[in-house]
């Protein structure tokens, strides 16, 4: 039945005239973020995803653009992780990130490479850089994507069928929904993607690629901002490195977060790596600083054990923690969405459960970790 219906729909779709507005744009380009000197892990993650996506295109070339001081030293790593071509933009003045020199570098490189797809990392720097590049290039941009695909897109209203539309998926807010954003009218179709979401490829030292030393046409005004101070290691919150994350929601209030901190401290006292996490609502309510935030606009984490305490489980939170190995939920509401992703749970007020958790951890309970 459904296959008949699908077949009929496909026939109707295929009757819509195909259009191709790429005008020679082809292949995928990615931005390989550095901190001026070292590659950001997401540089290799988006390269891995670009490599997988490229199988769905006629031109399978993946070009990585790397910007920084001595940026050429990253070319080999990028090639081993999937780049066919590396555009190296190297300058001593690029040790620290500044918007305008980077925008000029990316925009000039894109105009030369002419990719049909451009992927940036949705990091603090990427979210500064990508929108400005998109505005200068007069192209759309989809933010903070968690899934990407390439395929047919039919717009009946306009009577257009695209065979290689870039499908950029991101959670839509307040609900468990995933929105697909497309824009096959302007090229490159561009998106930023969440760090920590995509898997990098296993390095293959036999891969070969072309290295292009690229010189953007910088003008003096691009360099007008001056970096006067750099503070490293600003946040001591290392959610990504924690084996055990104890996260709280807004309804816990200050008192509840103090209790969670006590639990984190107790786990640490047993020599285990634990960190305090939080939902966006808790951060927005001012209960805790944003570097603790897990989820779509916070961090994507995959610890061994994730405790969601008083967290209802909005999709943007689930996006950030659903790959945790074991999930424990404690919530007074038995219908909270968090129980749908949890492995273990207690339906109760956190006030009745967390003190007991603290007690048992202080009495010597340690978590067994698979590593």
């Amino acid at each position, binding site marked *: 039945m459904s296959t008949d219906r699908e077949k009929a729909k496909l026939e109707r779709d295929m009757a819509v005239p195909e259009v191709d507005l790429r005008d020679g744009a082809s292949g995928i380009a990615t931005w390989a973020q550095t*901190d001026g000197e070292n590659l950001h892990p997401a540089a290799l993650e988006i390269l891995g995803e670009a490599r997988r996506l490229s199988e769905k295109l006629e031109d399978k070339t993946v070009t990585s653009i790397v910007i920084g001081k001595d940026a050429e030293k990253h070319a080999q790593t990028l090639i081993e992780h999937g780049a066919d071509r590396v555009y190296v933009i190297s300058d001593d003045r690029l040790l*620290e*990130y500044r*918007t*305008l020199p980077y*925008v000029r570098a990316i925009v000039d490189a894109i105009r030369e490479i002419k990719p049909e797809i451009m992927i940036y990392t949705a990091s*603090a*720097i990427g*979210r*500064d850089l990508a*929108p*400005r590049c*998109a*505005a*200068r290039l007069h*192209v*759309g*941009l989809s933010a*903070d994507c968690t899934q990407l695909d390439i395929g047919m897109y039919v717009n009946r209203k306009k009577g257009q069928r695209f065979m290689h539309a870039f*499908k950029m998926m991101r*959670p*839509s*807010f*307040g*609900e*468990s*929904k*995933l*929105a697909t*954003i497309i*824009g096959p*009218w302007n090229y490159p179709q561009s998106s930023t993607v969440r760090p920590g979401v995509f898997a990098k490829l296993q390095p293959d030292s036999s891969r070969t690629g072309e290295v292009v030393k690229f010189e953007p046409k910088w003008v003096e005004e691009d360099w*007008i*901002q001056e970096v*006067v*101070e750099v*503070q*490293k*290691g*600003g946040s001591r919150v290392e959610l990504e490195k924690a084996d055990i994350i104890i996260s709280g929601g807004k309804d816990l209030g200050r008192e509840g977060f103090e209790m969670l901190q006590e639990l984190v401290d107790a786990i640490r006292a047993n020599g285990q790596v634990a960190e305090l996490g939080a939902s966006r609502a808790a951060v*927005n309510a*001012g209960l805790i*600083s*944003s570097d603790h935030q897990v989820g*779509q*606009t916070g961090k994507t984490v995959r610890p061994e054990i994730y405790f969601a305490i008083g967290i209802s489980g909005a999709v943007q939170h689930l996006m950030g923690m659903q790959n945790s190995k074991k999930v424990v939920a404690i919530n007074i509401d038995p219908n909270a969405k968090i129980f*749908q*992703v949890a*492995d*273990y*749970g*207690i339906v*109760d007020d956190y006030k*009745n459960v967390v*003190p*007991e*958790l603290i007690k*048992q951890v202080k009495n010597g*309970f340690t978590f*067994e970790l698979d590593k």
Partner: protein
Amino acid sequence: MSLKDLNIVVLLKQVPVPKAMKTKADGMMDRSGKSMINPYCNAALEEALKLREKVGGVITVVSMGPPNAKQSLIEAMRKGADKSILVSDRLLAGSDTWATALALSSTIKKYLPDTDIIFAGLQTIDGDTAHVGPQVAEHLGFQQVTYVDKIELEGENLKVRRFVEGGWETFITPIPVMLSIHTAANTPRGPSLGAALRTSEDNITVYSVEQIGLTKEEVGVAGSPTIVSRVLNVVIDRPPVELFNEGSATERVGKLLEAVNRKEESS
């Protein structure tokens, strides 16, 4: 030389309160329910008010949205903003971030051409893109610094600190500049009696698409390079949760922790 009497713009978006957030069938946000000032925009307004206390000047709040966004503009003026512009027009419906930035920057270009500093929220809590501030800056040819949590005066320039991966960078930036503000920057003030008494809906000017110098092809769905093509329910496929709801707290927590430490039998 030092900065004095600045023309300050605050970009402000009215958003649904988180509990009322829902998307309509077409993937667009339903904006008919209970609303509030986007928290990041509130932080941006606070930085603008703090700066004006130091150097003087005029704060104009600029927003794009339905007519009911006036309530947020009134709230902003009750906190101390001098006047407001609301760009409101049915033609704007369906605008993506690119078209939104075009509408806002066209408004500033036409009606606030002497703007020195634009304060924007880092992002909104309904769209979460963080696009609009940088894109307005690009359209206007302004400098930009995003993720800002600290601002000081430095002669005729500003000294601003921004968050980057693994730390902060502090910049000296000339004006005109767009600064997007992180909620960590401050605790926004509430309304003040003096400002509230001065506030009047007359201080809100509403402009149509035509009045900001754009055509219907440049805004809304027609002017947006991206559209939402479909909205899917997220399906969660995990085995059902094992609950520990029987017995005393000690027993329940004990059994829970025992289960957490249990090795998976297979796979």
